[in-house]
């Protein structure tokens, strides 16, 4: 479907229409909204990581000054077990409802157990302190090894592992097992000249979006709720809130606010149903905002993992077999990103024999949520690190090893289908040629390389295009703008219609004003919603050709559309002047009424994205601190609609991946209490921590998109973990197989290595 063509608007670095408001503070985010009579909701959270809730006494709290409503789990309707199928992620509505408000057990420290609405935040918080909860403490499970032990305490009593060939007879904390395999993995290892194997661990990390979860909700006496929410997907907020509260979907309207980052973490709900229920009880609009501490303790981070990888290769670098054992923490409810992690782990490589086993494991931590390419950074960190170890043992350049085994068009992906046109080889070759790959390094400096992969998604999108009476264009779509999608949609509409970008405006409409649209996630918006915008524009062009034909008194199939004008086809004998979009719009009332184009689709063919990163680091041997000197991100994006925003995605993903590699982790006490729930102690990279991230866009068109687009937002976070880890090994000679590579961990590893070396010398 991709068309070779010269673009007029696509590829231009235009100014994003929402940019000025966002940098000057005028943009309205989730916590900025207010209504007359509004009151404030606050949540009481469990002080224990695992406890049975024996009783909750709210009588005193309900009588306190300013308090207008108090709710607990008993006030929510019972929600039966039902798979969540409308959105993107794995999950179950019963679990979702229980995560929003605990019922009989608190399953992690910070789990919501009650909520209060009062006329001020201070009154609400005072009332929370007056709620008496009697707990029976249970042993918390805080890591994979403990949770997978045969005699482990159960996070969910009665949970039986799914995905096993035989139905298990004993409950377990392992919610799901999956397996992918091809060929004969043991025979493949026997064929190998060299076999490497190692275990890697990654910690629980948070997306670190700057804006905490926030909403304002009101419900009228007719039972119709309106919610203003900071979310990646207001249609999913609508369906999930309706399900948790037992409402009809048509009785919930969700208006998306501007969003200050999500990265997957705002694809689910936390406070929205609570605010609606408090509004129902109080008869007032209720605003709820999570504090940063609550965001860390009670929203959804990314899984901690343990990954065991084994790779066999011939002396020339040809891979003969690969195996992966991948365990992902799900948090307190099933549904980690284990499956996509397992599907991604070997995706970049051609290998005839492999076995991948994945485990989704419950622990007493917050239910994990999606985080940019969910599941892939962890498993691919492990694989890409071991490939680095293999390259060193083979004496091969790490890019050459990857080139030797890289998938290309027609290769069978480890997760199943054959790849269509992809750009992995082009990324590797660009990395090999890149000047940054040749810069000499100094003392205690090292260079690392790693590859990244993400499927990208299509799914359902809708778009409308209205041509206004002056010929300007309004695009209406249903995806919150997180990464500059207003600009991308406007560029695509401008390209199709042949009008200047400045004459197109994009509105993000609420659930009652836009056609159903899946969440902004999966790197799907520019691809799928963009495709809907293109189709809606083509609908407009078809109508314009009919209007022009009617005006000229000729058949519509005798009219072409070029450069924003209706013109007679070559050879048509008609003495007419071209009609611009503005001219047709001005005359619309006389030719059939307003011009309204629309499209709704379930997009297929999201082209996969590959990346290659090069990291240069310097390690301070006295402190263990790792500084990133240079970082180069190379990625195939199919076609960059707005190159500046594509580069921004690549840089942002690199920054988050570097944070994951070097500093970020949830630090838990033995009782399961997160001890660093704030940005002072949970260390995400700031501008002064990072060099300018160099980017190189590769464009291998996706044949399933009219312009060749493939998603670009998630792939960038995948490769940095291993690239930085490999660079750190190159700088120190010491391989550390657990993230983050924080100063204490690096220093300890250097000391151990020095101690071992000294011991050997002495011995």
């Amino acid at each position, binding site marked *: 479907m991709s068309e070779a063509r010269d673009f007029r608007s696509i590829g231009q670095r235009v100014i994003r229409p929402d940019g000025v408001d966002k940098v000057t503070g005028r943009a309205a985010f989730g916590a900025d909204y207010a209504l007359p009579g509004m009151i404030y909701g606050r949540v009481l959270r469990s002080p224990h990581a695992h406890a049975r809730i024996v009783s909750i006494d709210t009588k005193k709290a309900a009588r306190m000054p300013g308090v207008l409503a108090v709710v607990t789990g008993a006030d929510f309707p019972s929600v039966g077990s039902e*798979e969540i*199928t409308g*959105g*993107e*992620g*794995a999950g179950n509505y019963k679990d979702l409802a229980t995560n929003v408000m605990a019922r009989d057990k608190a399953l992690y420290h910070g789990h919501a157990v009650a909520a209060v609405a009062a006329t001020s935040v201070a009154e609400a918080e005072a009332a929370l302190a007056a709620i008496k909860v009697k707990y029976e403490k249970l042993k918390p499970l805080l890591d994979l090894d403990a949770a997978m032990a045969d005699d482990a305490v159960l996070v969910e009593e009665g949970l039986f592992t*799914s*995905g096993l*060939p035989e139905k298990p007879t004993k409950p377990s904390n392992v919610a799901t097992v*999956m*397996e*992918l*395999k091809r060929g004969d993995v043991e025979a493949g290892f026997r064929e190998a000249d060299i076999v490497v194997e190692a275990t890697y661990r990654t910690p629980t990390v948070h*997306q670190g979006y700057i804006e905490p979860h926030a909403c304002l909700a009101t419900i009228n006496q007719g039972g119709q709720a309106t919610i203003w929410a900071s979310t990646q997907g207001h249609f999913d907020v609508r369906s999930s809130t309706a399900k948790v509260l037992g409402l009809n979907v048509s009785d919930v309207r969700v208006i998306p606010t501007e969003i200050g980052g*999500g*990265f*997957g*973490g705002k*694809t689910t709900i936390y406070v929205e149903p609570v605010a609606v229920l408090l509004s129902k009880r109080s008869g007032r609009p209720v605003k709820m905002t999570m504090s940063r501490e609550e965001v860390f303790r009670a929203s959804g981070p990314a899984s901690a993992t343990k990954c065991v990888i084994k790779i066999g290769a011939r002396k020339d670098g040809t891979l003969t077999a690969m195996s992966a054992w991948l365990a992902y923490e799900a948090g307190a409810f099933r549904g980690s*990103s284990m*499956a*996509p992690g397992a*599907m991604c782990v070997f995706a970049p490589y051609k290998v005839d024999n492999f076995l991948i086993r994945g485990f989704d494991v419950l622990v007493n931590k917050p239910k994990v949520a*999606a*985080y*940019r*390419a*969910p599941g892939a950074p962890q498993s691919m960190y492990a694989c890409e690190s071991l490939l680095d170890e293999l390259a060193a043992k083979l004496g091969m350049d790490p890019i050459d090893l990857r080139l030797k085994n890289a998938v290309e068009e027609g290769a069978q992906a480890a*997760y*199943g*289908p*054959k*790849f*269509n046109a992809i750009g992995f080889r082009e990324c590797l070759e660009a990395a090999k040629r890149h000047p940054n790959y040749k810069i000499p390094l100094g003392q205690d400096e090292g260079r690392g390389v790693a590859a990244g992969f993400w*499927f*990208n*998604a*299509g*799914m*359902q999108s809708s778009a409308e295009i209205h041509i206004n009476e002056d010929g300007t264009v309004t695009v209406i779509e249903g995806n919150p703008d997180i990464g500059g999608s207003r600009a991308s949609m406007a560029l695509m509409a401008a390209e199709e219609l042949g009008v200047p970008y400045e004459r197109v405006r994009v509105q993000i409409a609420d659930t009652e004003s836009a056609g159903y649209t899946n*969440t902004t*996630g*999966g*790197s*799907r918006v520019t691809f799928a919603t963009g495709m809907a915008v293109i189709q809606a524009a083509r609908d407009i062009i078809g109508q314009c050709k009919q209007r022009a034909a009617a005006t000229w008194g000729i058949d519509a199939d005798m009219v072409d559309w070029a450069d924003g004008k209706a013109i007679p086809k070559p050879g048509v004998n008609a003495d007419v002047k071209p009609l611009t979009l503005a001219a047709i719009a001005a005359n619309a009332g006389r030719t059939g009424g307003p011009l309204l184009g629309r499209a709704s689709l*379930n997009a*297929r*063919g*999201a082209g996969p994205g590959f990346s290659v990163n090069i990291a240069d680091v310097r390690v301070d041997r006295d402190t263990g601190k790792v500084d990133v000197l240079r970082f180069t991100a190379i990625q195939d994006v199919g076609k960059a609609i707005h190159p500046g925003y594509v580069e921004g995605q690549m840089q942002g993903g690199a920054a988050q991946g570097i944070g994951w590699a070097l500093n970020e982790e949830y630090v838990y006490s033995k009782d399961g209490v997160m001890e660093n729930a704030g940005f002072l102690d949970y260390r995400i990279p700031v501008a002064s921590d990072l060099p300018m991230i160099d980017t190189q866009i590769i464009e291998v068109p996706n044949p*399933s998109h009219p312009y060749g687009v493939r998603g670009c937002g*998630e792939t960038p976070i995948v490769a940095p973990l291993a690239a930085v880890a490999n660079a750190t090994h190159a700088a120190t000679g010491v391989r550390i197989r657990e993230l983050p590579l924080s100063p204490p961990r690096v220093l300890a590893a250097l000391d151990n290595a020095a101690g071992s070396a000294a011991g050997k010398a002495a011995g």
Partner: protein
Amino acid sequence: MARVYFPDHLASLTEGVRELEAHVSSFRDLLEWLEGRYPGISDKLIGKVAVAIDGDIIHDPFLDPIEPGSEVHFLYRIEGG
């Protein structure tokens, strides 16, 4: 004739069969054919899996055409961030 591939977690519903051939022209036809051959598989499939037809991953497939020689892979449903 299209070739259809099942991952392990669905092979339990296909009596262990991981690969088969089907004379179908759409995903709807394939579902009907599979349901006739392996009772109950349709309900289990819909909503829980994604499908790749000739390399294109599709969520919620139904009317999508399947050509002679097509490859159809059932996959775990993929979320995104």
